[in-house]
């Protein structure tokens, strides 16, 4: 059984022709997408994009977007995440979101719920400015937080805060596929005002007698996750499978409850802890492609990579030619010419004029 969405639009003859070798020669070197997007931004054959079709704000700290992906979108498995790009003041900012909708949704649309973080450039922008017609860039769905092809007999879906989206996708997909085994759905948030999708889950529970649901507010007196609450909903934990998404503390708590921690599928939204210490940093410099890690030393990233025995491409060594530009997977670096600090994941940086400002992972 495959939990992927049907492609929204079939590849018609015109599209096949546009994707042909002849057309590729005619539109070289830019490629067909650079022309099609001028007609309509989501008409691209190779670049997956989606047009926002509906926007609603379930809570004061979240915005839920429905989007219609174009034909380049290859679907997702319930629980996976997608890199979503949105242009803000000329810059394409990319963030990772797990769709909350069923992977078998009949109209092929995607639903994303974005929780607003106080410092979040993207989440605040989407909360304030998302509107129908907006175009978002989509990556390929990724992630191993998925249910086995044969869904487990008894399943417990547990989420904390914004972690609700992938497990809700699992629940909705199972419902669409007519799964009839017992399912418990538990959502934890700080306050009742932060609960996401309560009405939708209650509506599903009314239609599917095998589904039991519980919404809990940890700062309003509800107990944190415990074995009794789960057992009350679905019976003994032995033999049941849990899928948990939320903060690391929630995942640890569930794992400690389960008789067989191997039966707990988990994903956390919190990125691995990286220290940002500013210039003259100490920490670890990781070179991902060459699978090396060294303690941060003196000099620019280019000098430090060379000292570690690597030979990255370089040119001017003064920040003008961009030959040494490389992808920083994670961590913080400071540009010594501008003083600007890059902290986002997957940003391109110039090795010859950047110094570490904390732990750094580079794609070299």
């Amino acid at each position, binding site marked *: 059984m495959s939990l992927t969405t049907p492609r929204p639009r079939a590849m018609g003859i015109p599209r096949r022709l546009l994707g042909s070798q002849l057309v590729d*020669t005619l539109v070289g*070197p*830019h490629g067909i997408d650079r022309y099609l997007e001028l007609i309509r931004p989501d008409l691209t054959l190779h670049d997956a994009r989606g047009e926002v079709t509906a926007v609603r704000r379930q809570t004061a700290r979240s915005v839920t977007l429905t989007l219609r992906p174009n034909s380049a979108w290859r679907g997702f498995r319930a629980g996976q995440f997608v890199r979503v790009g949105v242009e803000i003041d*000329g810059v394409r900012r990319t963030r990772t979101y797990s769709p909350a909708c069923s992977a078998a949704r009949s109209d092929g649309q995607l639903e994303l719920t974005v929780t607003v973080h106080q410092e979040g450039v993207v989440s605040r922008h989407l909360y304030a400015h998302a509107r129908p017609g907006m175009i978002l860039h989509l990556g390929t769905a990724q992630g191993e937080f998925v249910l086995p092809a044969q869904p487990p007999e008894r399943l417990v879906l547990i989420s904390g805060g914004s972690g609700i989206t992938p497990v809700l996708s699992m629940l909705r997909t199972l419902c669409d596929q007519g799964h009839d085994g017992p399912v418990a759905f538990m959502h934890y948030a700080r306050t009742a005002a932060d609960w996401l999708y309560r009405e939708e889950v209650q509506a599903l529970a009314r239609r599917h007698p095998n589904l039991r649901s519980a919404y809990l507010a940890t700062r309003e007196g509800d107990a944190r996750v415990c074995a009794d609450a789960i057992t009350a909903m679905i019976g003994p934990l032995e033999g049941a499978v849990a899928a948990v998404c939320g903060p690391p503390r929630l995942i640890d708590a569930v794992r400690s409850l389960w008789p067989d921690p191997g039966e707990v599928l988990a994903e956390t939204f919190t990125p691995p802890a990286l220290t940002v210490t500013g210039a003259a940093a100490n920490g670890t410099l990781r070179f991902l492609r060459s699978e090396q890690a060294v303690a941060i030393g003196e000099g620019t990233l280019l000098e430090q990579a060379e000292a570690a025995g690597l030979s990255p491409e370089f040119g001017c060594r*003064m920040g*003008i*030619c961009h030959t040494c530009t490389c992808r920083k997977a994670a961590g913080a670096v400071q540009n010594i010419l*501008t*003083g600007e600090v890059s902290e986002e994941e997957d940003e391109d940086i110039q090795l010859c004029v950047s110094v570490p400002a904390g732990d750094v992972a580079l794609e070299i």
Partner: protein
Amino acid sequence: MPTPNRTLTAEQLDALGRELDELRNRVLADLGERDAEYIRRIIRWQRGLEIGGRSLLFGSILPPAWVAGVAALSLSKILDNMEIGHNVMHGQYDWMKDPALDSKRFEWDTACPADQWRHSHNYMHHTHTNVLGKDRDIGYGILRMSEDQPWRRRDLGNPLYASLLALLFEWGVAVHDLEVERIEAGEVTLTDKRDILRAIWQKGRRQVLKDYVAFPLLAGPFAPLVFTGNLSANLIRNVWAFMIIFCGHFPEGVEEFSEQEVENETRGGWYLRQMLGSANLTGGGLFHILSGNLSHQIEHHVFPDIPAHRYREIAIEVREICERYGVPYNTGPLRKQFGSVVKKIFRLALPRDGQEQPVRDSEIEEQQPIALAA
């Protein structure tokens, strides 16, 4: 002409460097929607002119349609190569994080493979600007463009070579990284350059296939008109790009440097060399766009990776800085600057006064390093 390091003290050079760094950072901090919208508008124009030009050529049984088609396609290629390709590949729009405008991935509508361009232009030329023996853009290994290049008998052909280079400019640029002059001198062999050759062949073949086979064949009975139309557009782009680019570093008054002079060069010294080694062109807004804003060659060489449409805005400040430090700011209209380039091409075809014997190739390598022009 005084050497630059003699006109400014080390402290003055540092101060100059700091002022220019501050100006650069100010522009970088201000980049945003306006710059993104600008480059996308230019791209929409380029794609529109390309589609319009090619469509007109398909219906070019009427002579005016052919002329209009050639004009539109020429403009499209000029925009693609200059205001879009050259500038995007400098990393001017990398901050947008749009893969279609990524300096490392961009490919342009000309015979030269983008990867080789990034090396020979962004690194070699922009780092070693006007340093004899290091900047291969001085004469492109074919022409004698400096008094300090020793005269050889074959330099008599300077004007002829320059005319051929102008007509075939995209191919001249394509084979730039082959370093023909070093192959000729026996320093490297064609075998060493196998990968470079292969990349040129692959890119060049695609370009030829598109303009001279695929589009003409699609036009059926109009094939000859489409073929000649595409050829004309490529030639016009070639000559235009040649003129603009030769006006960047070769007009009268632009200085060259020796390798010794740039040893231990500071950031301020590098800035100064960029300003002394470049020349601007004056003109209207459309002219600047069609020159890829290389009409602001001085600003471009000082800040190669800030969006080129900003050069015009900061030119006043750059010029003011130049004046304050007593650095010449070489600028003039196209006809004056190009006229002086043409004059130089002819003048340098002949040996320098007092240089009685042409230098045989074998003697060149033994020559003492060249002093800065007296």
